[in-house]
């Protein structure tokens, strides 16, 4: 089993990735990965056995005499009975293995870090709750977690059903309007893991991703402190103009940039948007160019999403993208 699990991935070359169930980076995903190979090997053996028996049956010369045929029939009956009994045993064994895996994964973790995740069409709102309201952190589309510490993600949906799935860390769980679910997992190694909405949620279901960044606890605390700060101030005239545009145009109606007049709550919080690796729910890497392209024409990039095309002059667009790039 151990050796096979090392050998077989070679057969499925190129199976690892940053959104892959075959490349586990946490204990839950590892348990599931082990279970996966247990099932796969068992099923492969059974499948091969059935195919071999079929092949033998096809090539076999049927019994010549009536007596021989009757004997073969009686033998077959015993073999079929045995095979059915074996099926029952295998099914029971696999059920038990599933039960063990479930127990391991869903064990209670009281000291877990709590993160609230709310699915919107088609982006994610992330909240790090704290007893003091001013220490509560609101961000979007990127989750940071400390390595080695369990996290509990509390899942909710604002509109339709979504599903949160980081295959490298654990299995998925649905976000259902009117119901609350949660998911506990731990990341052991630092890294960036891609998650994607796994329940069909409308036009832009394909572009509803989020990134989970696992980092050492100190780095996580640094990140958290930085994120709690207000937006950085503009550093030059262009950025200053960008902030003015953002505050006076439709942007501010939907987005918040803490420390400015923009305080809309319909779209992702942009206070530190440039610190995030991707924009538009995991779609484009965060660069000044992609920010400008996105603001200029969101409906060509992600048709049907809820951000309208706000008409801006070329200068205004330049300025806004410069300012957004400043928001680290």
């Amino acid at each position, binding site marked *: 089993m151990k050796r096979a699990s090392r050998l077989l991935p070679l057969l499925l070359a*190129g*199976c690892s*990735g940053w959104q*892959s*169930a075959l490349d586990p980076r946490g204990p839950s995903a590892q348990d*599931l990965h082990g*279970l*996966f190979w247990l*099932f796969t090997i068992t*099923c492969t053996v*059974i499948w091969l056995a*059935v*195919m071999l*028996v*079929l092949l*033998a*049956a*096809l090539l*076999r010369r*049927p019994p010549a005499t009536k007596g021989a*045929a009757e004997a*073969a*029939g009686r033998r*077959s*009956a015993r*073999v*079929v009975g045995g*095979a*059915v009994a074996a099926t*029952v045993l295998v*099914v029971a064994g696999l*059920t038990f293995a*599933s*039960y063990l*895996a479930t127990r391991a*994964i869903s064990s209670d973790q009281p000291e877990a870090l709590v993160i609230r995740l709310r699915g919107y*069409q088609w982006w994610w709102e992330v909240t790090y709750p704290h007893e003091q309201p001013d220490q509560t952190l609101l961000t979007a589309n990127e989750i940071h977690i400390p390595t080695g510490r369990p996290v509990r993600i509390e899942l909710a949906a604002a*509109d*339709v*059903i979504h599903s949160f*799935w980081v295959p490298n860390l*654990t*299995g*998925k*769980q*649905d976000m*259902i*309007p*009117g*119901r609350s679910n949660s998911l506990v997992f731990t990341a052991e190694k630092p890294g960036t893991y*891609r998650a*994607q909405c*796994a*329940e*069909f949620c*409308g*036009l832009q*279901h*394909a*572009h509803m991703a989020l990134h989970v960044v696992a980092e050492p606890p100190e780095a996580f605390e640094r990140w958290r402190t930085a994120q709690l700060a207000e937006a950085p101030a503009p550093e030059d005239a262009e950025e200053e103009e960008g902030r003015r545009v953002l505050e006076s145009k439709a942007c501010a109606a939907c987005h918040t940039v803490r420390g400015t007049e923009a305080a809309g709550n319909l779209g992702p919080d942009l206070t530190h948007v440039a610190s995030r690796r991707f924009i538009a729910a995991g779609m484009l890497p965060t660069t000044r160019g992609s920010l400008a392209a996105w603001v200029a024409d969101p409906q060509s990039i992600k048709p049907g999403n809820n951000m309208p095309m706000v008409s801006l002059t070329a200068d205004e667009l330049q300025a806004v993208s410069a300012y957004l790039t400043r928001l680290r």
Partner: protein
Amino acid sequence: MSEALEQRDLRDTALDEVLLESRLARTWHTPPGWVGFFTTVDHKRIAVRYIVTAFAFLLLGGVLALLMRLQLSRPEAGLIGPDLYNQIFTVHGSTMMFLFAVPVMEAVGVLLVPLMLGTRNIAFPRLNAFSYWIYLAGGLVLWVAFVLDVGPDVGWFAYVPLSGPQYSAGKRADIWAQMITFTEIAALAIAVEIVVTVLKQRAPGMSLDRIPLFVWAMFVTSFVVILAMPAVVVASTALILDRLVGTHFFNPAEGGDALLWQHLFWFFGHPEVYIIFLPAVGMISSILPTFVRRPIFGYLPLVLALIGTGILAFGLWVHHMFTTGLPRVGESFFTASSMAIAVPSGVQIFCWLATIWLGRPVWRVPFLYILAFFFTFVLGGLTGVMVASVPLDTQVHDTYFVVAHFHYVLVGGAVFPLLAAVTYWFSKMTGRMMSERLGRWSVALLFIGFNFTFFPMHILGLQGMPRRIYTYQADLPWGGMNLFVSLCSLALAAGFLLFVWNALRSARAGEAAGDNPWGAATLEWATSSPPPPYNFTRIPVVRSANPLWDDGGALPVASGLSVNRRELLITTTAEARPEARETSPRDSAWPFWAAIATTIMLVCSIFTPWAVVWGSIPVAVTLVGWFWPRGTPEDDS
């Protein structure tokens, strides 16, 4: 003699063979041309029509599949936008499930059950005609809407709230929900006909242990239909009400629940899989003996496995809801019950293997399809065991792994047997054989094309590719395999086209078949190919499970039925002892008009609830026309 011909109660005992056949032909005959087309109640004509329509929908659904593969062949391909893509995958899924798979299986049942049971027509033949027209109307509603850009775009499962009033504008979701109503009415009608036909119209002597396995499978399937389909009717009605008159079944803010939809839908949706699969295993069990030249091994275990599957089918709807956060306590129970279905499936596989083991294979095309079935279905069944495990399912649920799994089960487990069945019974229905050479080519293309198209999807799913996405970004490692899958899907499509071409060509120019070209054992091969409208000149008498093999050269038959009216034989439910001579209804256009009236009522009721009130009046009028006695000899008692 001429006096005898005029008398009202003329019996077959009074006539010689030639005269008897001509009198029966006159009694059971359907007028040619359009009149006959709209009025016929002959189960064979309706079934063939049903099968041809279902295959037309298969091809349409296949075109949609190719469009999806075209769009997914490379990352961020801009060929099909999200709006159209969502309509395409919804209409593909709905077409394949509701307009192809279920109807085609039921239609094969309508065709073969009366022939295999040795009776002259199905029970309630007018209901049968009605069923076809309703099915056709439902299919047209979906496809006309799709062409008009009103195609449903909420998935074939139409989860609320996405399909609910707030998030699905217009009438797209209503079209889907009402299309369901059409196909459910059609399927339920056939289920009733088959249950009653199997219970009461078996040939004398065909006791429960002599019923052909395909008939057993259709019998169990019909019960599954009867118990499962009402759930989706309730669900889709509630959805339409939520959308049209503002009820709150699925609105959590007013006491409704989004998961209620999923419970209702999957209480139907999981048995649905077995509604498609059970007839297919029945086909295997009925075809296989012919091609290994021996009776099936393990008749009783096979029947019990069919019944067991039918019962277990209702225990595992939660199987589709493992990631919705249901209580952990129940999870192991649902894992166990989902996996338990592997046991009856295993019984069937092992019995078929033993049949082949003890027999002498005949390498004709239907047998090749059965071998393709073994290869793919066993694989699909085993991945089914994987998705039945709650923890594993959290990784593969709603990914391409599941797409691969259910295509293995449905194409491998149902379409391959279906193609075997069409090839096999084609000779009975047309009197001609399908080309063996083209047949071998299409088996090869379908088998290779299918496995190369769908096997890589398992890996794509494990690599994190979710279902129902219209595109994916270039930085995800899915591009190469998707391109490979898209290319291979062309081979699969070619296999289907070749099959259809073979069927069309052979229907006109195939080699003549004769009554029993494959040397089979069941009763449908005891009559001519194609069978006369009355199926059997005289009702056969059954003395074993394989009548045509065990009865030597002569077919035992019963005499004494009237030839002046459409008459068939009623037998007791268990022993099949003759009980009464019963009449079978004449041709009628009323089922067609009733279907038209029902269609108008159902389509209008997605626009206004009052359509249910005024629309039911024409329905009632047509139904009275349908059932009003006409004083024909069939009404005598």
